[in-house]
């Protein structure tokens, strides 16, 4: 069977699966006794990550910059990780650069964060790398918040002006020497290249430098994979190509894990049901990496939800059901589009028994 024929067959199978989902959903609405809930953020957030995030935010609020500096210095080796293999360093900077603990929030007010982090820079004539990086990260988030959740074509001229002025400020913070020993430098540099009109060559070069310095930095792999979305810098098949390179570098189990992390990132933007059809990613390789992540780092609610979704896309009902049992009944709104989709379409297929 040719590759094209195989893709067509897979697409046909997916379409059948969708039809089955719809039919099952209709049946389910009449027969199901599963109570519908909409989980609160506190129910689905990772307690370890959230607790750590709030502790760091407390340190910042109290102005304990020495502790923050020491914490950052201890995290740059990337040995400390949370569920899903998430680097503690990433949670550290996200805690400093966002008002909440759920990552960037376009509705949030970022202005109150500017002074506390700015104070960190003013303490000494030679601020630590973490202070520069945290401020750059915050100002990039502050730039995005200028758009007030608007789509690109709805952003006003004044909002664009504010956006680019803030991006320039963020870039200015990264101009200081001695920051490349912190893996987060490469992460925020990638984002700022994207936000200031960088070219694909510049993006590739920055990732390459970061990857060579920190080959097991999973968030950097995920960030680069996000930039390979065709609506940003990529073209069809780039994400699969990139994931394959990780199997060779860093290779081994680390490479398999990185492959799965890239697939998880792809699952966030590749439209259903194309994740394993036109991207070059395979479910078999993804599944192997996911199993390693679970074994080494464990999975949180978000991870299990995402694994379940990916298994559903791959039409692997046993894997989807296994993942579902780990998070039931707390479906995660950041993975599934809405309650109706989850209860009426996904869940009936996942739990279907002949």
């Amino acid at each position, binding site marked *: 069977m040719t590759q094209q024929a195989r893709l067509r067959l897979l697409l046909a199978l997916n379409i059948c699966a969708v039809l089955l989902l719809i039919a099952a959903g209709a049946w389910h609405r009449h027969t199901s006794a599963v109570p519908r809930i909409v989980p609160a953020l506190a129910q689905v957030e990772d307690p370890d990550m959230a607790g750590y995030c709030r502790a760091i935010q407390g340190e910042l609020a109290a102005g304990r910059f020495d502790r923050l500096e020491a914490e950052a210095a201890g995290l740059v080796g990337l040995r400390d990780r949370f569920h899903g293999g998430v680097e503690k360093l990433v949670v550290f900077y996200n805690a400093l650069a966002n008002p909440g603990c759920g990552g960037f929030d376009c509705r949030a007010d970022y202005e109150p964060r500017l002074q506390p982090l700015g104070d960190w820079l003013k303490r000494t004539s030679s601020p630590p790398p973490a202070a520069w990086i945290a401020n750059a990260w915050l100002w990039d988030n502050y730039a995005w918040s200028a758009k007030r959740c608007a789509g690109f*074509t709805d952003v006003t001229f004044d909002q664009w002006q504010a956006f680019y002025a803030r991006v*320039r400020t963020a870039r200015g913070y990264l101009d200081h020497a001695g920051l490349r020993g912190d893996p987060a430098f490469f992460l925020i540099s990638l984002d700022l290249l994207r936000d200031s009109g960088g070219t694909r060559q510049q993006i590739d070069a920055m990732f390459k430098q970061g990857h060579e310095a920190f080959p097991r930095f999973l968030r950097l792999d995920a960030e680069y994979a996000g930039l390979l979305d065709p609506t940003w810098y990529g073209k069809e098949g780039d994400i699969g190509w990139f994931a394959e390179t990780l199997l060779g570098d860093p290779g081994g189990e680390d490479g398999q894990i990185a492959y799965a992390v890239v697939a998880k990132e792809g699952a966030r933007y590749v439209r259903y049901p194309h994740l394993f059809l036109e991207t070059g990613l395979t479910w078999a390789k993804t599944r192997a990496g996911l199993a390693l992540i679970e074994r080494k780092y464990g999975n949180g609610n978000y991870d299990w939800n995402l694994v379940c979704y990916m298994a559903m896309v791959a039409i692997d009902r046993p894997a989807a059901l296994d993942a579902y049992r780990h998070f039931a009944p707390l479906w995660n709104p950041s993975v599934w589009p809405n309650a109706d989709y989850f209860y009426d379409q996904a869940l009936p297929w996942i739990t279907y028994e002949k």
Partner: protein
Amino acid sequence: MTGWAAGWAAACAGLLLACAAAATDARAELTSPVAFSRDGVPADFCKVVRQDLLDGEFTQLEATHKAAQSLEARFTGGQPELEVFYDALTKSSCTGFFATSCSDDPSFDSRKQRLQEWLDRKSDPSTANLALARFWWDAAWAARGCGFANQVTSQQWQGFFERLKLAAGYAHQIDAQSDAEAGHLLLALARDFNLPRDQIDAVFQQARRRFPTYFLTYQEYGTITLEKWSGRTDLTAPYVQSLATDPGGDTGEVAYSILAELLLYEFKADRLYGADAGFAWPKVKQAFAAREKLYGLGARDWTALCYLAYVAQDRAAARDALRQLDGKVQFWPFTGTGDFYLHVLPWIMSDEDAPASQP
């Protein structure tokens, strides 16, 4: 072009020139009875006129036409009501960006029937004949389809020329001196019948002498000068540059800007300001300023100016155009809006001299 069509084209040449030379003057004095906001889009006006046609409101149509005939009523950007009036009667859609004739045309038969009824009433035969000539010219292009010339089938070509023949038949009855659209239509027909260059030029010269502010005529001639029509690369630049003196003045400036807005799609960025197209950025900038002063500029015009400034690497002008658009770019020539937001916008908004934002 097939042999029989070429022969037919030659036979039509005299007819077209005769039409162009006909002289009557029927200036209208009525104000437009159509209620719509000229700050709005021409599509609103187009839809009202089209509905009048479909409803058989011929008296209303004639009043609207007479009000538009003076070319004083214009939309933002300078497009005259008269141009949109004929678009409304003859094109398949009121909302197409470039008003192409390639989309489905569900009201084709109804419009054809109503236009014939209008002619049969004999209340304004000159305008009704022009509308029917324009209708069959648009229909000819619809029959041809939107493919490249080498993709058009012999049946499509046959349909094209049969409808052109119908258009020419009605064109025989029109008055090129009283209605600006007549000159434009005759020029388009001259091109489509492949008339000799000097005859095409003669039709154009007569049309622009009689109605120098009917800018559609300049656009039509601009396309005729392109290599894909004329087979020559030495016609566009001299024509573009001639507008500074003929018609010259504000009218020449407006014509120059409108032509830049049209031809930017025909030349890649590195050729737009070169010898091929003949545009010069300082003149483009000046021309748009003059046009803005006279007629204002719409979103489409500001976007074109933003693109033209970007190609010229005039950051301040590009930013000013973007400010006029309030940051909202709905289309971007050649590379699309994705490329605009990813690469062009950062360039426009970057400024080495501007201070970075501070807390």
